[in-house]
């Protein structure tokens, strides 16, 4: 369990005032939750370097109670000695990995492009499509969020079979775009609303067209928000399992599908599952660590009106 020794020492040296104890508790709680958040990840990463005995005996700390070995990564064909050789598992993995990258990046890109344009329109202009006003349009877009995936699954299966889009990347990209579009519009509308309209008015006076003002003035300002929307979409698409499991079979299935299909069959071959899980979560973990502040900033605008 996590302890907060350094802080207790500091607190012990001074007279333990109320405030000092408060700080000790705050840091203890922080460290405790850090442990809760990181331990499963730590466990997975280390397990991918274990052999059977280390798993059954519950060894936890590398180099202290077990010697790390490439066991798990070798089974994936990604360890140093197997990286040069041909490996069917690695080819399979890389294919799934590539699918995941193409699909999640493609869908996020499409959603951010469509969603940002729509959000900008909704935040700046008054529309009337027949009886539909801005509020109805916004509701139309945002209400797609509550559509449960099970409702779409079967019609899409039939539709995609007729369109020859079943088990293709582009089919999954379109579907994922639909599922993340409401979130993108939700974030981007508040982003655009927080940009003062005077900026465009000045651009119009200088002779810019509507689209010119949008691309030259507004887009650069709204870029951090778009990054946030992009990351959020990326997370949701990369991790999506339900549609991928139902609508793909051999060509277009993504990492979660591969992961799920391995889960049952591996038994206590934990090292190979751990290596696979590590490889599946690593890209987003890196994205998360590098771009976390954009995510927070973007959602700040989304959540706080």
């Amino acid at each position, binding site marked *: 369990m996590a302890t907060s020794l350094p802080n207790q020492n500091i607190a012990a040296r001074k007279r333990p005032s109320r405030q000092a104890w408060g700080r000790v508790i705050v840091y203890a709680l922080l460290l405790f939750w850090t442990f809760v958040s990181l331990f499963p990840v730590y466990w997975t990463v280390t397990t991918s370097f274990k052999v059977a005995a280390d798993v059954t005996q519950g060894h936890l700390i590398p180099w202290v109670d077990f010697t790390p070995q490439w066991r798990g990564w070798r089974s994936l064909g990604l360890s140093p000695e197997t990286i040069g050789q041909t490996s069917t598992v690695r080819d399979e993995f890389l294919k799934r990995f590539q699918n995941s990258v193409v699909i999640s990046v493609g869908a996020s890109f499409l959603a951010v492009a469509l969603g940002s*344009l729509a959000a*900008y329109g909704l935040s700046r202009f008054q529309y009337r499509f027949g009886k539909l006003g801005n509020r109805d349009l916004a509701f139309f877009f945002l209400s797609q969020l509550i559509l449960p995936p*099970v409702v*779409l699954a079967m019609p899409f299966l039939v539709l995609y079979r007729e369109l020859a889009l079943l088990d293709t990347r582009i089919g999954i990209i379109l579907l994922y775009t639909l599922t993340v579009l409401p979130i993108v519009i939700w974030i981007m509308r508040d982003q655009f609303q927080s940009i003062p309209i005077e900026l465009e008015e000045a651009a119009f006076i200088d002779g810019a067209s509507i689209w010119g003002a949008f691309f030259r003035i507004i887009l650069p300002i709204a870029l951090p928000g778009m990054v946030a929307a992009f990351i959020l979409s990326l997370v949701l698409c990369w991790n999506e399992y339900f549609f991928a499991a139902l609508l793909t079979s051999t060509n277009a299935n993504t990492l*979660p599908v591969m992961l799920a299909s391995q889960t049952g069959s591996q038994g*206590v071959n934990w090292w190979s599952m751990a290596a696979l899980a590590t490889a599946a*979560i690593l890209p987003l973990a890196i994205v998360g660590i590098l771009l976390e502040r954009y995510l*927070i900033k973007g959602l700040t605008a989304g959540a706080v009106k």
Partner: protein
Amino acid sequence: MPPAPSATASAAPVRAAPDPARRQAIGRGLFWAATALLLAAVLVQGLHSAGWTGVGFANWRPVLYAYVLWSVAVCASQVLRHGQQGQRALFVLPAFLFTLAVVVFPTVFGLFIAFSDWNLSSFTGRQFNGIDNFVAMLNDPYYWNAMGNMVIYVLAVLVQYAIAFGLALLLNAEIRARKFFRVAFLLPFMLSPVAVSWMIGKSLMEYRFGPLAQAARFLGWDSPAFFATPWVARASIIALDSWVSIPFIMILLLAGLQAMPKDIMEAARIDGATGWQSFWKITFPLMLPVSVTAIVLRIIFQLKLADIVINTTAGGPGGATDTVTSFIYREYRDRSNVGYGTMLAEFYFVLIVIFLTVLLALINRWMKRFPTT
């Protein structure tokens, strides 16, 4: 097909079009030509797939291309015919046409499937069977059991919210290494629920060797089977789901906390309010709008909960952890029972719409009564 939008001008200069009549004509011509093309494609392929004519395409893909072409033509004709207003319409039109295409057909077709007896693994194909599926649904104990579970899972959102609020307060306190803690707390949200099902559900909680099971033994629980009895299994699933989704609520709440005016808290401190008082009297009421957003969003996501259940327990033991989505997933995947599964899904969708409408109405009413907002 959307009629002409009319946008009220904000502050854009009015430019004289070179030849308005000609542009109008081109725009209109373009629109009707594309419409004719789309209709022709639908007609040709419709007749072909009905078996009435021999002329046609191998699949419906060309109709999709025709729709894309039609969408482009609609956008172009808007600009040609309505100038500036058309340019404004161009912002929402792509998203609108996209959503229309991918949502309208599936929902309409879904209703069609829902009222038919259609099992993909049987050879009889689709047959209309009226309300048989509906009657079967009413008498399906497993479906209603899954519904009952959904109530529990949705209620668990409140617990997640409470924990997330605590974490957001911690991160908003004056602490060192704030960025480190923020990244660490956020990390679980980035991870795939399928991976998490294995990482926690299938290995950390594994009965024999899982560290969590070992720890539970150490703490005096003799047989730490996390997925064997209904309530323990439900609690385990909720714990797994919370681990992934608490960070999401936490970010939203943290954003709210950081946007809160500092001087109010300062004033409260000077007036001698304790931490507890200033939380309940100031922080919590000010955070209500953000809280409501976070909770409603989370409930919407929670109603789709499936990945973790499918991959950890497959609904077991005895359906105790089943969500509606995971139950219907098995209906599709294992029993290929498309007609019945879709009826379950459509009914669930109707329930969700009613539930969320009522919930939002109640929240609106309740928020109005609140003094500070």
